[in-house]
């Protein structure tokens, strides 16, 4: 049902919590990074850094966002930008917080 379109913003982005790519969202690799499309909200986003794409792909298997960022060996200087981008993706439901039973790798 067409719920997502009218939903308000979700809970605040928490880098210490586990997240995943929304089940209704997909990534398509491009030279600049990737296109992200959410079939439920019909929203398109551009992930403009390959490192960001790596992190988003790693989210589902990591115990937290920060763990995913570490696993992808994102240079320290890039981390704030990556986290801001992830917060943006969470704000549009492109990535979502995993609930407990989904959190185990």
């Amino acid at each position, binding site marked *: *049902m*067409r719920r997502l379109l*009218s939903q308000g913003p979700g809970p605040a982005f928490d880098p210490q919590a586990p997240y995943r790519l929304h089940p209704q969202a997909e990534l398509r690799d491009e030279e*600049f990074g990737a*296109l992200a499309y959410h*079939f439920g909200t*019909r929203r398109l986003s551009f992930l*403009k850094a390959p490192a960001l794409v790596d992190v988003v792909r790693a989210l589902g298997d990591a115990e937290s966002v920060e763990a995913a960022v570490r696993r992808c060996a994102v240079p320290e200087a890039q981390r704030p930008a990556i986290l801001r981008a992830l917060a943006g993706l969470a704000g549009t439901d492109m990535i979502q917080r995993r609930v407990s039973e989904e959190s185990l790798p």
Partner: protein
Amino acid sequence: MTVLESRPTKLVDHFALGLNAPICLTWELTYACNLACVHCLSSSGRRDPRELSTAECKVVIDELQRMQVFYVNIGGGEPTVRHDFWELLDYAVEHHVGVKFSTNGVKLDAAAARRLAATDYVDVQISVDGASADVNDAVRGTGSFRTAVAAMENLAAAGFRGFKISVVVTRENAGQLDAFKALADRYDAQLRLTRLRPSGRGADVWADLHPTDEQQRALYQWLVAHGDNVLTGDSFFHLSGLGDPLPGLNLCGAGRVVCLIDPIGDVYACPFAIHDQFLAGNLREPGGFQRVWQDSALFASLRKPDGGGACSSCSMFDACRGGCMAAKFFTGLPLDGPDPECVQGHGAAALAAAGGAVIPKPSGDHSHKGPVRGQPVLVPLSVRRPDRACDESPLAGLPA
């Protein structure tokens, strides 16, 4: 559209060089249409007997899924008059190809609206070209406003929120922007305004219907004031020279991030450029759509950096990038020159200078050959006076 990180120019540069697959793709399922709008960009009316079959359409959808073309804009003609329209819609959704389809509303009864409201993957766009029946029906045909509004009523009643109301801005309706917005608000819909192109039958009426300079400036201000709340399909980037860029890419995406699949499988650089010069190939050939997208010589040339030609010395070039390729082509202007509606006035000057230039005609014309019920008549019928006052013979004046 969200752009993460703050390097938009770089992203646009990537787009200009083409992507692995289109970002969005227009697919016209049929040239058949119940209407005969005076400005139809695909000169639609009659079905083409070579139209892709149901099975062929499904092969295309499979391929789009493989290429991760996340959504297609389906149009026509009137796509819902295809007997397999709903079957293809379901097939696309099952294969993770989202659909937004454009319709005049003719088949959008209460049952169809309920069906559409039940899925997130489908979006609907109802076309109207006037906020009142008189303005709309003058270009789209008698009764077409009533049909479109009935479709909106059905969608709203079924709980479909956020469907699109799509308007081509013309000299006749440019004063109705607030009324269009009110119409959209009434149905919890989103307004989408697009540019009138001189494509298809639009070439015949463009000179009379394209907005005046004053209307363009008012339109620009109105769009700036409404920001992301009003969609434009990036139509109006030629107005960017009037001030800050409008929301969107502000880039001609033809063959780079967009393209058109026509009802017989021909792939064109963009929906407004149905002409042999912009034909990249046909997806019935070996390799299908992917091969056309990735290997066509036309698309390769469109993806090469271009210098901007006559416009490159203009201070506004970075804002408008020379405007719309199709608008130039079908008004007889060179592709490396100004847009016919250039806000600096260069287009009007170029049009005046081109004067007698031969204007290219679209490659195909599927317009109805006979009369269509309620068909719009924009130009008053010319009444020829009898050769002589006393000539009453119906054959008077005809060659013997």
